């Protein structure tokens, strides 16, 4: 009987210990990451560690009957981050580089009354004010 009690006690302590460990593991919300320490990471030398997507924005000018210009704006959808704003000739081409945070999925381009939304999941955006209908 005495042995039984001792064995039972040891088993109980063991189970409690396991439970505590399991609970601690459950505290870690994220699993599956292969490296546990930063200096265990190996990456390609091409990886730049940037949390931005680099985009090339092209405004495609079209010939106009008269010189026409107004403000071209490229911003986040909520308008809080303005990536570009400047005076733009309607007939002149224009190119600029954008660095858009990776957690921003869309940007808005406004030119006069024309406003278009573009996905940032591309390397280049081409913007013009030509009609979108083919005919």
């Amino acid at each position: 009987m005495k042995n039984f009690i001792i064995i039972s006690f040891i088993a109980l302590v063991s189970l409690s210990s396991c439970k505590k460990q399991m609970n601690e593991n459950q505290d870690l919300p994220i699993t599956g990451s292969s490296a546990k320490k930063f200096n265990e990471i190996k990456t390609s030398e091409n990886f730049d560690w940037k949390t931005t997507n680099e985009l090339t924005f092209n405004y495609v000018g079209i010939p106009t009957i008269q010189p026409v210009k107004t403000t071209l704006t490229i911003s986040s959808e909520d308008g809080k981050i303005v990536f570009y704003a400047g005076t733009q000739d309607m007939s002149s081409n224009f190119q600029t580089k954008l660095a858009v945070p990776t957690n921003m999925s869309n940007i808005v381009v406004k030119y006069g009354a024309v406003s278009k939304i573009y996905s940032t999941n591309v390397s280049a955006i081409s913007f013009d004010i030509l009609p979108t209908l083919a005919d």
Partner: protein
Amino acid sequence: MKKLLLSIVAGLFITANIHAQTALPILNCETSSSPINNGGSRGATDRRNYDIANCWTFGGVSYTDIGAISNFYSAQSGQATSLLVTSFWIKSPWIKPGSGNITLKAKLTASNGTVRKVHIAYLPYDAVTGNSAKEGTRVEFNVYDFTTINTTVNNLSIPIPAAIANSSVPYKIMISLAGSGGNSRIMLDDLTIPSTYFADPLNSCLPQVQILDKDGDGVADADDAFPEDKEKAYIVQIPNATPSTLMFEDLWPATGDYDFNDFVAIYQAKAITNANNNVVEVIITTQLNAVGASFDNGFAVQFDGLSPIRLNMVNGSVLGTSKWIELNEVGSEQNQDFANIIIFDKTSSVLKSAGGSGINVNPEGPFVKPETVEVTVEFNTDKEFAIEVKDLKLNPYIIVNGQREVEVHLPDYAPTNLASKKLFGTGVDYSNPEKGTYYKTKNNLPFAIKVEGLIPHMVEKQDILTGYPKLADWAKSEGQEYENWYDADKGFRENKLLIYLEGIK
């Protein structure tokens, strides 16, 4: 105040978007993205779209390169078997009619049909009872009848009616193509209207309106961030300097503890530009959040590739008493090829410790309110010196513990002139200046990280992977997986190992 009043009183009105009023609206069906004939329906659509962008409108009328009246393309109706003037039509942009004759060329595509006509009318501007394009009731003033049904080109010349000639209010000219019997189409080309173009292609092709531009810089007040300052017009976020969290290890070129909290700051830079899109000022805002270091590090920004000669003045730097600081007459750092701006000489000049080890890196506190340093860099806008936003490539870095020759930069950002090149390749540094790789280890690990957005930093001595486990997967996948590894919404954080200061989410 007097200056302000004068500015307002003398404020100029500009005509929206349009900067000359002498061109004649001509429809010759030849304007396109290609200066040469690009042929076929694609070329026809291309050309018509360009004319639509210039505010010509079309109903049942297309462009064709088959049997064009002149050059490569002409406009043509469908089979002209409707006598209605609303079946096939072309409307001009809004114009202010001049005097003289409207001229055009017209022909039929085949020698068949009973009746073929070209109706010419004007449309007044009517903002109250007009249609969505503000067009009022159509007034016809001429009808040309194809008395002979054949394919000969007819040259039409119709006087602008006295009722609208030399008008100061806008009108459109509407050309309708009508007929009955047969299947021939009516072609039209080289339409010229003596008038002043008065449409605004950038405002839904409505007539130009007078818009307010108080400072007269050519940027409408509605778009102008500084409507009463003609030297400034726009505020733009500089690329790669949107509000970000900068986190440095300061033991470079030795390995650190990778808690990336030796220097933690919220950083952003905006450019103020003028109506010519030249940079007038750059405002660099740095909120120093935490110092998990025994070193007293400085913070600076290099304008990569930009000579100091382009600067007018630097204001707002916190320079303390550090002896290593040498500035030129405009306030950027001396002996630098590229403009270098010292934001502050050392963290202790900005944040005072409240006791204990480090500042704002221990979860038990005490906590110190982060301090913000705003530095304004004024630029020379003279033509030979002026730059645009695309010329701004900012390179933020720390200067380690008052040792001017020891800098730590973001990965692959080049050191300044004053950094010691002897340190490259020592310790765990694997920089290769010949390849343009800097401040990375052999395994491509950085000594500093910049995250777009405001994120919490690590508790002292806690490896960054314990707080942001998905950072490892993001890096190993070269950014293909878990690109938002720092995102709170996706549950990618171990919050008990992170310090959340006010405003950090």
